[in-house]
């Protein structure tokens, strides 16, 4: 394929490629600048940051915010918990969503429309905060790790995405051929569907992992035990520190506090998103254009 590309690049294609490079370059710069800004702001004097004096290079470098954050035992507890919830939650979510999404993609499955409707309905109607809490309290799941792992791992949205992907990328003839060969549904799923759906598996894993990594609401509502709380909940609290606090006693402490508060929101982003940002490049290798389909078809 690569060879063919090289042979047949016309003048028009050159122009298109150039245009694409320029466009993509603009997108990249647009997205990179703020990231850079956050990084620089997290180590700059907040007065420069908020007065707009900060453009590209750090000014008045200090590490108060990082020092403050690293001093908190809560930060490390949070990191540990988040890793645990993200890893097991993603595992659980994939195990539940992928088979379900595939099964619902099968045109020959009776009542699939009804089941789909039942699932989709819950995207729009929910009991709300209070009844959900009552149910979870009844199940004795308040203040447990297991709840924070499973809650939010299964989303109908992801199931819909998997279903759509399978419908459009796993040809009906393939399954028919397999079933004539005596291949059972389970075997077909494991030996053909899964290898063919690596791209969507990667996307869904990313979605669930990022969702778990960024989620704080479930932990906020369903735990009051600080030892179970994830990183994001703690970081969110740092963001919400009452900046107008009127009852700080010590003026020196206040001074340190003000400097810390102003730069901490930037440090918080760096601290919280660095690990999950690194996940994406690892998953990218599954985004290779339809290598499998061609081989299996023949």
């Amino acid at each position, binding site marked *: 394929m690569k060879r063919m590309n090289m042979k047949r690049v016309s003048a028009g294609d050159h122009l298109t490629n150039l245009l694409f490079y320029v466009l993509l370059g603009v997108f990249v710069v647009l997205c990179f600048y703020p990231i850079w800004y956050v990084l620089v702001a997290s180590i700059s004097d907040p007065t420069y940051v908020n*007065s707009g004096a900060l453009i590209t290079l750090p000014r008045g470098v200090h590490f108060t915010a990082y020092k403050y954050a690293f001093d*908190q035992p809560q930060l490390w507890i949070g990191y540990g918990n988040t890793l645990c919830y993200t890893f097991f939650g993603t595992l659980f979510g994939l195990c539940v969503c992928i088979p379900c999404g595939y099964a619902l993609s099968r045109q020959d499955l009776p009542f699939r429309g009804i089941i789909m409707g039942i699932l989709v309905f819950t995207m729009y109607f929910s009991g709300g905060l209070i009844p959900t809490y009552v149910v979870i309290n009844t199940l004795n799941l308040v203040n447990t790790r297991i709840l924070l792992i499973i809650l939010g791992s299964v989303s109908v949205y992801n199931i819909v995405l998997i279903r759509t992907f399978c419908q459009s990328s796993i040809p009906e003839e393939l399954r028919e051929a397999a079933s004539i060969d005596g291949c059972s549904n389970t075997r077909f799923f494991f030996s053909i569907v899964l290898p063919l759906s690596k791209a969507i598996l990667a996307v869904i894993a990313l979605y669930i992992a990022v969702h778990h990594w960024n989620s704080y609401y479930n932990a906020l509502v369903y735990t009051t035990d*600080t030892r179970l709380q994830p990183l994001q909940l703690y970081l969110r609290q740092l963001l919400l520190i*009452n*900046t107008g606090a009127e009852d700080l*006693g*010590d003026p020196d*402490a206040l001074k340190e506090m003000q400097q810390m508060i102003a730069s901490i929101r930037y440090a918080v982003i760096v601290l919280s998103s660095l690990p999950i940002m690194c996940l994406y490049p690892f998953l990218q290798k599954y985004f290779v254009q339809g290598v499998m389909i061609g081989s299996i078809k023949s």
Partner: protein
Amino acid sequence: MTKRILTLALCLILALCALTAAALADEEPVELTICTVRRTTDITSSYSEKHWVQALEKACNVKIKWIELLEGQTDEQLTALLAGDLPDIFWAGKIMKDSIISQNTSLWRPLTEEEIRTYVPNLANFLDENVDDWLNFITYPDGNIYGLAGGKMHSTMHTTQGIPYINTQWLERLGLEKPTTMEELKQVLIAFRDQDANGNGDPNDEIPFDFCDSFNKTQLINCAASWGLPMYNGGNVFYDFDDAGNVVGAVNTDAYRSFLEFFYELGQEKLINLEGFSQSYDQFTANCNADRVGFFWGWGPCNYITDSDLFLQFEAMVPPTVEGYPVKMYTANLDFANAFRNDFVITRACKNWEKALEVWNYASEPTTALEICNGERFLFWDYVDADGNFLGEDATEEDIKACGYHYLVKSYDTSTPEALAAYNQLLTDWNYDWLVGKTFTGSNTTGLVDGAPLMLEAENYETDDLTVWGVQRYVGITDVLEPANVFCPYYMNKNIVPAEAQEEFDFMTDGLYEVIRGFCATSVMNGVTDESWSSYLNDLNTYNYDFYVDFYNRLFHNEL
């Protein structure tokens, strides 16, 4: 013989067993589940780690299981908690709103005055001494008392509104006087704008007058005080009092219109920072910190400025007068300005309410209350005499009484390695090993600031050291504003609104505040015309401003 000895021995053993059993039963601590709010800056990993908690458990013979809600995110957590298993006690005055109490009265254990006097004498005595008619403050419309009071009472710092501050160094540099009238203020602002007031060589970087609409102490609407309208966005106070003490409309008056028109002119001449309506609190403080601001309304300069040399340049001033109008500022409730009615609420789930009351009685003892709020005495704070010297460990109860329970928070020098080592040693000696080498902020770290037991605070600002937190504001109120007699003689007392009245009020006034704030902002930006004014009056009518005024009038006269 042996039989007798055996019997005797048996009896002895039995008696011993009975005795130890009785003793054990006596010592078995009572378990209490207490829900409280955890400060983000709290450095302990759990409340049980705090020294005062351990002392409290020992003194009252209780074992406390803490449920710690997270500061700033308590709304959802409290909602969930109330829907599930209730704790024995809510010790969190800041979040237990009157409406939560009055909408769900059967969740709480009602208390009577006798019970409070019998079981919580420390609190009752304190209230008898300092608050007139305190029973009225804590009794709910259904005649019951549901919460015990706590928090800090600012008996002399009795306004929660921002006050005006001007940079005296700027005035000096330009050879100007503190303005007393609005016209004079305008001239001063013009000088600030045109000249190099901050002396940095650039005559164009000054912001003569800055404000920040998203933070209620620094809002522009405070300035309506000069037109005799004591308004305060933070509490949605958009009304005025007439001479008889009745609540009347404020934002529909000609005085208000004239206020808006005046500030529109200031805005057009670039004398106020029009970005104030959209800028963030961080941007506002950045302007202040960069010495670009000459005049602002706010709580106290040290809240917005970190450098003490810079914040000491600011001095409080009387709001400039406008011809034909009195200056009038908003006054909060004198007695209960910052205290909480529902600081300690016992729920129906609590089996041992006498024990719960005992805990609050213990906490309400003056020195204990201060320790609960600020951490350990001698290490984090101590009482001070009239000259501001710490009393030290030798002080007796009489000495403390003589100094009127004045105290100051201690700060330590950590600038040199030796001083730091000494400070760390001190922490270790006090059993605060886990504080060594950590960034922590004084009282917030070890105390329970958001639910402290009831205490008087104002006296602690009586020091000559203006760098001490809050003193600038205190001096401004007592030395500048009070002599000028600007505070509205009436104040909104904190009568409790019955649940039904609150519901009606919320729905009737839905959208009203947005109309008022929106018109204020757009008028200062774009000016007021007869058309915009009459359509605004129309809007006020549609959004039931009359009802709003009447509601507060009835609340003020306790007729709801």
